[in-house]
């Protein structure tokens, strides 16, 4: 009955034995002092402090080696003007682990939450650079490459709208920066396009490009994203043509944009001009700038 020693619980001894047994499992055990030679205490302390110091130094060194050079220079830990590759091994491993986990979490049968029209929020124009001049819209064509037929197909928006069923969905678009917006989108399923124009048999990826994208100074800056075909086949992955029931405005990617609500906003490329199917993972605009390549949410 060692737990009886714990002052506050002495009262409980009058309670039914079942409760007492239960309390016994959770009750604190009395400490058992051990006798040691005083000299051993000092030796332990020295050994422990040495190990502790070595561990702390190692942690600092490993953590510090992963910091970007500008930050180390700012802290006065690195000489300014040093060049050469930065050590990003651990950071890259963490990102890869996170992407592998996101890939494992992905399921084509798991639908992202949908919302009602009353929950729609304001969606800002988040073109990374300047918004393109709408002059490209009348002559816009979508080019498909990497098809099993071996042909390159060129489609216009009227043909796409006429040939495919249009689906509506109100979903949340989540930006890598942390903001999000709920919007009402309509468009054809990416999967329907895949059925109509099947990719080459070994294809696992789609490269989506927008040739009309501009940088902040208004110069051409083609945007491109990689999308795995499993995500493209998801029933909620749309090639959106409408926002809030109206044709897409230029700031939201007229006339056709990707809407993959299980990916971060940066994968949801606007004003798609070309889709090519590939066997190997294609490049990605933001992956080159240090972000994840998978971006599954």
């Amino acid at each position, binding site marked *: 009955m060692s737990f009886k020693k714990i002052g*506050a619980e002495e009262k409980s001894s009058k309670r039914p034995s079942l409760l007492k047994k239960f309390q016994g499992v*959770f009750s604190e055990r*009395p400490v058992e*002092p051990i006798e040691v030679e005083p000299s051993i205490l000092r030796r332990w302390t020295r050994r422990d402090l040495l190990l502790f110091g070595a561990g702390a130094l190692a*942690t600092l060194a490993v953590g510090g080696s992963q910091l970007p050079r500008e930050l180390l220079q700012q802290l006065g830990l690195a000489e300014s003007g040093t060049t050469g590759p930065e050590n990003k091994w651990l950071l890259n491993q963490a990102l890869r682990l996170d992407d592998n986990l996101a890939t494992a979490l992905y399921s084509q049968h798991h639908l992202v939450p949908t919302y009602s029209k009353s929950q729609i929020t304001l969606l800002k124009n988040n073109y990374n650079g300047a918004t393109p001049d709408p002059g490209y819209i009348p002559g816009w064509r979508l080019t498909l490459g990497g098809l099993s037929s071996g042909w390159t197909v060129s489609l216009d928006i009227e043909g796409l709208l006429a040939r495919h069923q249009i689906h509506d969905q109100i979903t*949340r678009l989540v930006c890598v920066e942390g903001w999000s917006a709920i919007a009402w989108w309509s468009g054809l399923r990416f999967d329907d396009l895949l059925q109509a124009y099947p990719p080459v048999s070994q294809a696992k990826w789609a490269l989506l490009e927008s040739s009309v994208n501009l940088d902040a100074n208004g110069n051409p800056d083609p945007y491109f994203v990689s999308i795995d075909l499993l995500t493209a086949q998801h029933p909620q992955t749309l090639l959106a043509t409408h926002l809030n029931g109206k044709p897409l405005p230029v700031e939201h990617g007229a006339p056709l944009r990707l809407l993959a609500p299980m990916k971060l906003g940066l994968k949801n490329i606007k004003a798609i001009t070309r889709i090519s199917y590939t066997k190997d993972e294609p490049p990605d605009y933001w992956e080159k700038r240090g972000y994840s390549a998978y971006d599954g949410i």
Partner: protein
Amino acid sequence: MSSGRPSRGETMTTGARASKPRALVVRRHHLLVRISHWLNIPLLLGLILSGISIYWASPIFQHPPNPTTGNFDYFADAGIWICAHIPWLHHYADPANWVYNHGSLGPSMLAFALRFHWLCTYLFMLNGLVYLVGLCIGAGWRSLLPRLSDARGVLQMVRHYLSLPYVILARRRQIHPSFWTKYNPLQRLAYFTVAIAGFLAVATGWAIHKPAQLSWLTAIFGGFDNARVWHFWLMVFFMVFVIPHVVLVIADGWDTLCSMVTGWAIKFRRPEVSDHEL
């Protein structure tokens, strides 16, 4: 931070052993608990610094934009205020980013901050598991569980700490409430809460990170935006926890600090052991 007067271990227990001087120690923390405790310092530091860099990209707490500056972020306001009121910062080049330049990995480095955050996150989760394993095999978990019967002791301790400033200023003496347990009830509550906060910080983090695949988790915290608010205040909780934690361990003495390095303490209350010796 064991309470009460220390009982130095050099007591002779039996006559037979009286010839040799012996020290009595108690085991306080399992090796795995100690390792995970100290690893929390660099990990939480990395998580907070990179977290504030991520926050910079899209602050959760915004006010309507200031008509002249266009600024909408409270942290930017704070930076501007600091630079306006601290004499040697009057000529600081970028007052709106002062907080981010000093309390984060820096502004405009979202991609790096995210990767650094993931690295620290996975290590933090691993560290949490190490801590739990250490608590289980070291049987330390029993000392951490708060009990309903702790309520009175918690209030006693709160009253003790609240009256300390007065007691010190008035040069009076106040007796520390005494408890027979490894931790006093307030400590127990604090350590238990901070462990739960660690779990919630991870859970809200995943709710923000995977709001589509883990939509059920995001829903538990009231949706994507609310999960971000939770995640933010949990960070604040860790920052606030550290202050009394460090102050009190220093106040309590070297032995308490050392026990988190070596695992044993020479300071313990006699009644903690009495039923084995009597």
